[in-house]
């Protein structure tokens, strides 16, 4: 009788980009947007200290360019771009963080990425507007290390859940295939 393939030996690979795992060795990649030199240096350090990979840009326009959402061809390999979180200042010349938030939520490729707004001004209507538009959180500047760690932890948990769901799905698919093969007595 031919050897029946056990489920673990079957390789059901998919083309989805859940190949980037939030294991302890894989870093969350954060895109930070701020027009202030000092604040860019500060947020970059906060994120590195929190074990995140960081890309910092100085405007919303550059953020859109980086993501490939500006209509031009992106310089970064679009399909390989894995951003786990976007943190943006609210008040920026040209396009504001709020407008950037809207553009990201309008994009089918990036609308699932959590966007956090940072602002030095505690203006309730502004906060409401951002949250209504789908912002993950609104942080008052100066941002605290505790805020960043809290964000990172909740993102890691979400990634872990997504990873577990994917593995569970693969297990089910593998078991299903195994049963089919068994029934066909291959």
């Amino acid at each position: 009788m031919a050897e029946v393939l056990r489920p673990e030996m079957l390789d059901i690979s998919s083309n989805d980009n859940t190949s980037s795992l939030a294991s302890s060795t894989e870093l969350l990649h954060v895109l930070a947007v701020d027009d202030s030199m000092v604040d860019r240096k500060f947020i970059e350090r906060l994120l590195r200290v929190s074990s995140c990979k960081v890309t910092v840009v100085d405007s919303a326009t550059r953020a859109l360019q980086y993501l490939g959402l500006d209509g031009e061809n992106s310089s970064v390999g679009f399909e390989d771009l894995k951003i786990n979180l976007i943190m943006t200042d609210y008040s920026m010349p040209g396009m504001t963080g709020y407008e950037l938030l809207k553009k990201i939520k309008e994009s089918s490729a990036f609308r699932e990425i959590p966007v956090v707004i940072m602002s030095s001004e505690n203006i309730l209507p502004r906060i409401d507007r951002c949250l209504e538009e789908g912002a993950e959180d609104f942080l008052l500047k100066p941002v605290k290390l505790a805020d960043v760690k809290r964000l990172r932890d909740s993102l890691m948990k979400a990634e872990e859940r997504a990873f577990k769901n994917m593995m569970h799905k693969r297990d089910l698919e593998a078991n299903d295939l195994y049963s089919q093969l068994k029934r066909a007595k291959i």
Partner: protein
Amino acid sequence: MQRQVALIKQSLFDQGYLDEQFMELEELQDDANPNFVEEVSTLYFKDSARLINNIDQALERGSFDFNRLDSYMHQFKGSSTSIGANKVKAECTKFREYCRAGNAEGCLRTFQQLKKEHSTLRKKLEHYFQLARQAGPKETARRPK
């Protein structure tokens, strides 16, 4: 020497030149990044010098574009807050209040005071960082590994 550095730092806090945000910055230093606070400070003074210049020019022109001045001051206040420059931040707040009130004279007066505080802080921090470097890395606050 290290004790001297500690005393200088303490007096900067006691006299209100710096606030807790400066301590938050120190918390982010480690062996791999022992000069982080000084780097941020250098960046701050470079950036704020540019802003002071812009505001000086805007005020010299005589026409008081309060919106533009307020916008410059918003940036100034922002970076001053991020580094813990307490007195400078307070002057920024006052300036913005005068802007909103359309009070040109108040703006001019406050701006002179702001420049003084800014210059004083720069000298004090330069002195502090110089001593801290001489005293050796033990003195600056470090994050536990």
